[in-house]
């Protein structure tokens, strides 16, 4: 049924339709509305047969989920940013134990400096922990991916993070089609664990594994993610057949057929990029886009197939590996490794800490990429003036003070103005 609702609410309803049995989360911006929505639905009975547990930390939230999942219950949690890091040990524990927990990650920057706005640093921080990671482009996809995530997680006994841009998606109100319970039930059968704590058949889960078998355990996790490369498109196709729309899958292409420049990006920014591409195409510029939905497993072959035809690839990402550059760009490089005549990959770091990515800025950087591509990471809309001033200050004075506060002071009132209007510089 079509509804005009907040993305968080749509996600809560979709998750509710998946018949979760234990929901346990700790509040953190921007995931709060999702969990609050679920809590209400449990209280009103819209979600039946479900325990909603309030805990004292994210570490506890995922730990409760681990216990519940190991005992055979369909478990769900949600977090962001600092919260994901606070549960980091449990994140590895859940995937190492092979528990099919589904988690919403409301993508948010990680401090310091503390920042509540959107970027992908949280997902990147734990992208190698053994969880699958799917990135939603729209709120419709955000809702749909949760349904697919439970199916995928339980089939492979491996947890899944559904990544949803904080605020941009979670707090946006838009038109979303909420499926029926019957359709979701037909798509997602009840959870059948491959391992379960049961007095009728006692087993020990979580023993130490020494050098003689640890590699094999990890290898099998890696192998499962290669199976996911096949399952993700299968489940997306099944989803389309039942629910009538494209959602999920490994990646999507937009106007790449004769593109000389292909952009690669994840998440909500893809919508803005599509509008920009249409405008550039209207000017005769041969540019296209590949939207990556699955980041883990990384769809190396599928991506390579889309990118080989181009001359240049521009990776636009909301993440920075400090000291290295763009982690997504690095992953894209992998897809083109050892490919003869492969396109050049150019890295753009954008949108960190919630800085809006505008059509105007995208036009500038993509048009530049067509004629004069750069080496290394390019920081979109970097305020070079305040950076230069800070560098100058730091060279002059030893006790130069906290960097963040210095920059903010230089921005002065303009900071509040820009933040309010989201104008790029």
């Amino acid at each position, binding site marked *: 049924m079509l509804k005009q609702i907040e993305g968080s609410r749509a996600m809560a309803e979709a998750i509710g339709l998946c018949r979760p049995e234990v929901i346990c989360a700790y509040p953190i911006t921007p995931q709060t509305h999702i969990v609050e929505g679920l809590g209400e639905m449990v209280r009103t009975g819209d979600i039946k047969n479900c325990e909603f547990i309030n805990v004292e930390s994210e*570490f506890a939230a995922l730990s*409760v989920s*681990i*216990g519940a999942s190991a*005992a055979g219950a369909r478990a769900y949690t949600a977090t962001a940013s600092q919260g994901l890091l606070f549960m980091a040990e449990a994140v590895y524990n859940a995937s190492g134990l092979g528990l099919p927990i589904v988690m919403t990650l409301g993508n948010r920057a990680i401090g310091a400096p503390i920042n509540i706005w959107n970027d992908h640093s949280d997902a990147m921080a734990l992208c190698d922990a053994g969880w699958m990671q799917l990135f939603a482009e729209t709120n419709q996809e955000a809702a749909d991916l949760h349904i697919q995530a439970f199916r995928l997680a339980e089939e492979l006994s491996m947890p899944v993070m559904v990544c949803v841009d904080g605020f941009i998606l979670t707090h946006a109100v838009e038109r979303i089609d909420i499926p029926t319970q019957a359709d979701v039930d037909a798509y997602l059968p009840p959870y059948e664990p491959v391992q379960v704590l*049961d007095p009728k058949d006692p087993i020990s889960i*979580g023993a*130490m594994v020494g050098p003689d078998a640890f590699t094999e355990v990890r290898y099998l996790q890696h192998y499962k993610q290669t199976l996911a490369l096949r399952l993700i498109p299968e489940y997306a196709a099944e989803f389309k057949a039942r629910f009538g729309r494209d959602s999920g899958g490994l990646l999507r292409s937009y106007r790449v057929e004769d593109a000389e420049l292909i952009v690669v990006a994840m998440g909500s920014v893809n919508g803005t990029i599509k509008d920009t591409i249409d405008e550039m195409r209207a000017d005769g510029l041969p540019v296209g886009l590949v939207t990556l939905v699955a980041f883990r497993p990384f769809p190396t072959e599928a991506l390579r197939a889309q990118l080989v035809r181009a001359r240049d690839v521009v990776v636009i990402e909301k993440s920075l590996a400090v000291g290295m550059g763009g982690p997504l760009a690095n992953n894209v490089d992998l897809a083109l490794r050892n490919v003869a005549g492969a396109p050049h990959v150019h890295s753009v770091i954008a949108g960190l800490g919630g800085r809006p990515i505008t059509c105007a800025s995208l036009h500038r950087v993509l048009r530049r990429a067509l004629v004069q591509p750069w080496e290394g990471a390019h920081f979109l809309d970097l305020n070079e003036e305040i950076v230069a001033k800070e560098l100058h200050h730091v060279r002059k004075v030893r006790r130069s003070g906290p960097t963040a506060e210095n920059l903010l002071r230089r921005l002065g009132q303009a900071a509040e103005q820009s933040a309010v209007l989201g104008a790029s510089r």
Partner: protein
Amino acid sequence: MNEPARTLDPTQKLHFYQKGTFTVGNRLVSEQERAVQASIDRSNALTCGHRACQGCGEALGARYAIDAAMRETNGQLIAVNATGCLEVFTTPYPETSWQTPWLHSLFGNAAAVAAGVAAAMRVKGRRDVRVIAQGGDGGTTDIGFGCLSGMFERNDDVLYICYDNEAYMNTGVQRSSATPPAARTATTPAMGPEPGNVFGTGKSVPKIAVAHGIPYVATATVADLHDLERKVVKAMRIHGARYIHIHVPCPLGWGSASNDTIRLARLAVECGLFPVFEAEHGLVTGSRKIRRQVPVDDYLKPQKRFAHLFGSEQGNKRLAMVQAIADRNIVEYRLLDHDGDV
């Protein structure tokens, strides 16, 4: 002159000096009073073949506690274990000595994981299946403290058992917040002006558990295994958050003889350093009285971790400080107050 041989009257009642113990052995004890461990029908949830040290107090306590819980729940029990000695020596890869469903997650989250298991059992309609979380003092009083308090606060239906050997033993005897003052550990060495653990530090998790107002809190000791079983059974008859803190000497970490484990546990009780008590909903309901008080020295001397307290003036001063702690416990928990409960 020869006295005629005396013969014992078979109907004469024999009185044993140590009243209230079972030192004559179970065969003289009635069936109902026998320990679960005395029964050949015991579940052996923690069965033989584990790799605990000779004289390990934790293995002893865990065996008694879990089998008592198994009997009380008709074997419908799931155990969640924190990282630590118990977890390591009971699951030496590729073996396990657990015959009940058992989950080891992390060091600091046993209480939360157990809450999750309990929630799953409720959701699945299996309310007969009960959950025990267990960990050492490190995993309980320090790194697991947040999750423990959260479990208490929510009144989750979990019995948490802490096996307190007063240090991080498995990693090489490092100090925890349960390490008593003056004790030598690898991170509070017997060196410098104040050798051993610092006075004025440490926390009593049993007291904190009482302060949470949960349905049942008890301390127990491997010196009184019947009492331990009784407390576990009592706890399993209650729903909600419960906490049992068991004092378990560690020969390796304490530097004591492996055959002294139970004796030391008893001395800890009898000198007042380990009060044995029960509490319900925030109020202490009773304590085990000290039969024959001994000075703390008797308890500390057989342990090498306290060796630096003996034979110096500074050592004597610090012994007196330890004695003061014992004396305070005796007053606080009325351990010599014999007109109270036993």
